[in-house]
């Protein structure tokens, strides 16, 4: 149970970063932290106490396996997260070239 609470706490740490920080790079770091906590949660969903890797082989005694499906999902989610982070950073660098700052209080051409 503690693990799940810590996982939710990690998610909230990331959300705090996104909501309160004013630096674009710190916002991106916050999103990454949230993403890791969701990935961790998916891994926890598939975990079985005392389970081993789900590979069938001869002479296997312990037949409790962890669920492999969430692991496959997490691999996909990590790749998607990589694409999101890369695009965010690319846009942040372009914004820095145009505005000369990472501070979101000074990046406010769009209003209303």
């Amino acid at each position, binding site marked *: 149970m503690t693990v799940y609470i810590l996982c939710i706490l990690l*998610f909230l740490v990331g*959300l705090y970063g*996104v909501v309160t920080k004013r630096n*674009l790079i710190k*916002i991106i770091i916050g*999103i990454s932290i*949230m*993403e890791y906590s*969701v990935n961790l*949660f*998916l891994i926890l*969903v598939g975990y079985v106490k005392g389970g081993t890797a789900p590979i069938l082989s001869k002479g296997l005694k312990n037949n409790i396996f962890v669920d492999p*499906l*969430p692991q496959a*999902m997490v691999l*996909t*989610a990590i790749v*998607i997260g990589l*694409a*999101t982070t890369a*695009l*965010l950073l690319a*846009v*942040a660098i*372009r*914004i820095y070239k*145009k*505005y000369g700052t990472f501070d979101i209080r000074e*990046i*406010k*051409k*769009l209003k*209303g």
Partner: protein
Amino acid sequence: MEIFVPLYVAIPLGCAFIGAIIGIFSKAFSRLFTSLVLAFMAGLSVYLILLQKFPIVYTVGGWKAFNRVPIGIYMVMDGLSVYLITIVNVIGFLSVFYSISYIKRFTGENYYYSLFSLMIAGMNGVVLSGDLFNLYVFLEIAAISSYALVAFGIEKEQLEASFKYQVLGGISSLFILLSIGLIYWYTSTLNIADISRVLSQKSFPKTIVFVEIILLSAFGLKAAMIPFHAWLPDAHSSAPSPISSMLSGVLIKAIGAYVIMRLFFNLFAISYSIAYVITVIGTISMVVGVLLAIGQWDIKRLLAYHSISQMGYVILGIGIGMLVISKNGNMDIASLAIAGGLFHLFNHAVFKGLLFLNAGAVEYVTGIRDMKRLGGLAGGMPITASTSMSASMSISGIPPFNGFFSKLIIIIASAKAGYYVLSILAVFVSMITLASFLKVQRFTFFNDNGEKWSERGITIKEVPFPMCFSMIFLAVLCIVLSFMVFPSVREVVLMPAVNVLLKSSMYSTNILGY
């Protein structure tokens, strides 16, 4: 027939990468190839909608269900999916054909067409997927390519809008992934039909309510419903015009409204409380969106706020249908409300796509988006002015155009269901919409603000053929779609989609076969 289902994802994906590579050497190849591919897919979807053989289920890799547990990834084409597929591909083809002239001013044209095809592939995948995690993956493909397309102009506004859109969209995607994890934890399956079967056998616990609320807010953000709408006016007004027309016309429906319908009708059992929340969100979006729109002077920003308002109509129709079903009311009224919502979804794709293309044409010729500095364009640009007039009349609900009939159906359905306040609000919002589009017409096309265009060094002439073709085609669709109120057309096009939502508990039986 089954082979067509994966092709809807495979063809645009292939087109994206072939177009990006060969496009380095020949820009013309990239333009023509993407247009031809999307024209083929638009034709194919019209053929499939006329064929009337639903549902078509394709299991990826041929993995059949084992001991009544579906193993492979299911792709499902039922009435609702084919309806959305038609919208995505028809509007996609017209936007890409319009881009042939419009995007010539930008560098990196081949990457534009590549990202466009990726977005189409993602949306087709979302609409066809019968598997919850697969739906998430396709949703991210569509969303990430749309983030990149919003920033395509790499000016200050585009980058800022794209960053906002990415942060909010990224957070909502994470919430979707979290809720998929929770659903998998509870039901041990990811297949939408199978989840629905498992949930119907269990009691209704608090976990599912929690998951429903997370999913409603996450997909509400993708569909730009009112408390979650902050990214939409920036992103939709800053993007290049054909992309604005795709985002407003198709993307918020395919990855927002469609998924809300699919999940809350077919995946979860319909409950009164969720139906109530959906109706309230739809009503608030409808009213507040139009009130925010009327004060705008940037033409594309005004249109973007109207997207929120018109999506409110769609969600309102769907919500009233859900309310009537959850109270075991008259199924005919529920059917009428859902049909109104789905009909308005198609109509909004057509007229809002057209209005953004018109705004793009005005910007293409004059380079100005501020309505205070425009005026007197009707003489020089007759095609743009007349198509814009028909789209404006359609969105504000003037009788021979399609917008009138769908709004009328929603209003009648809400009055019949006993929600008189909602029908009065819908009429009221329609009148304000008319007022704000009279403003657009007057200040953009008719009002002469004293300054001659020639004195400002701008020659007013009609836009090139590809742009005119797309605009005229959509203006004709604005009239032709009115025929959907006739029973013979409605039975073929609209009713299969309505029946999927109406007989919501039949979904898993139809897909799984037991």
